[in-house]
């Protein structure tokens, strides 16, 4: 079919010129896993690996050739019985930390988990301190003078709004 041949040429051109524009032209591999658990792992792994060629796209949907190679390698390694972590490390060792959408815990990334955890703990402490300080505070009853002023204000307010 002439049309599809043309569209293939265009895929190449588009990939070369502006890889990000290809994102609406989603990649589909006819790949089937007999084992549903392995299929699930494949989906998770390809969704958590970033395509190095693209701007912001996981390899599961990217049409770029390197993403196709990476998907193929993921499937191969799954069939070889490799663990998820092995596969992710394998990719990071070749394409850089950049391809991991869930960064590895190290000296520069620990804050990513430590800060939310610290905030939850700190937030809890703030709540405790806040409520403790206020728990026994009683609202001071109005003095006689304030009471009359209040009622006159309310009175005046009613008159005005009617």
């Amino acid at each position: 079919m002439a049309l599809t041949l043309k569209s293939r040429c265009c895929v190449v051109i588009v990939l070369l010129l502006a890889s990000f524009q290809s994102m609406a032209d989603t990649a589909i591999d006819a790949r089937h896993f007999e084992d549903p658990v392995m299929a699930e792992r494949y989906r998770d792994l390809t969704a958590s690996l970033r395509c190095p060629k693209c701007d912001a796209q996981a390899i599961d949907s990217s049409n770029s050739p390197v993403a196709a190679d990476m998907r193929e390698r993921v499937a191969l390694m799954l069939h070889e019985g490799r663990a998820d972590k092995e596969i992710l490390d394998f990719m990071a060792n070749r394409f850089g930390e950049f391809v991991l959408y869930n960064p590895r815990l190290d000296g520069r990334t620990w804050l990513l988990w430590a800060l939310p955890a610290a905030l939850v703990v700190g937030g809890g402490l703030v709540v405790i301190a806040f409520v403790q300080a206020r728990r026994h505070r009683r609202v001071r009853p109005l003095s006689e003078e304030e009471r009359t002023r209040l009622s006159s204000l309310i009175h005046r307010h009613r008159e005005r709004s009617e």
Partner: protein
Amino acid sequence: MIRRLLLLLPFLVFVGLAFFLYRGLSLDPSARESALRGQAFPSFTLSTLEDPGAEVDESLLRGRMSLVNVWASWCPTCKEEMPQLLALSERGVQMVGINYKDARDLGRQFLEEFGKPFEVNIFDPAGDLGFELGVYGVPETFLVDANGIVRYKHVGYITPAQVDEVMAEVEKWH
């Protein structure tokens, strides 16, 4: 006083953030770092483009510093890069090519047409070596020192203006 300082905290945090945003403006979001820098060149056993019967492996890159260029005949920018590669080779750099995901006759034809800066071309039709190198966009260029350690990586084609930059890296790791 402490309360006022506390109230000033959001402002101070914002100033810090704004500094990083400012720095971020001058960064190139499409730049990638190489995972291989400082690592040994991956091992491989492949034939050469010139000779289907030959067998080369990583020892090819030992003993002398070489500039390894990944190229393919289907890659339009590779053609534009050729003059720069020839210039580098003329300046005494040992050039090794990796003919990536290509057909032998097309690769040879390409070299006949656009020049032969390479002392030898590793033939990688399935792209396996390319994958080990983390190649994601052809052309890519790796500087490998005499001990077979990758020292520098350039993604995309080397523009005429970048030849000196590459030369400086070559001299740095000599």
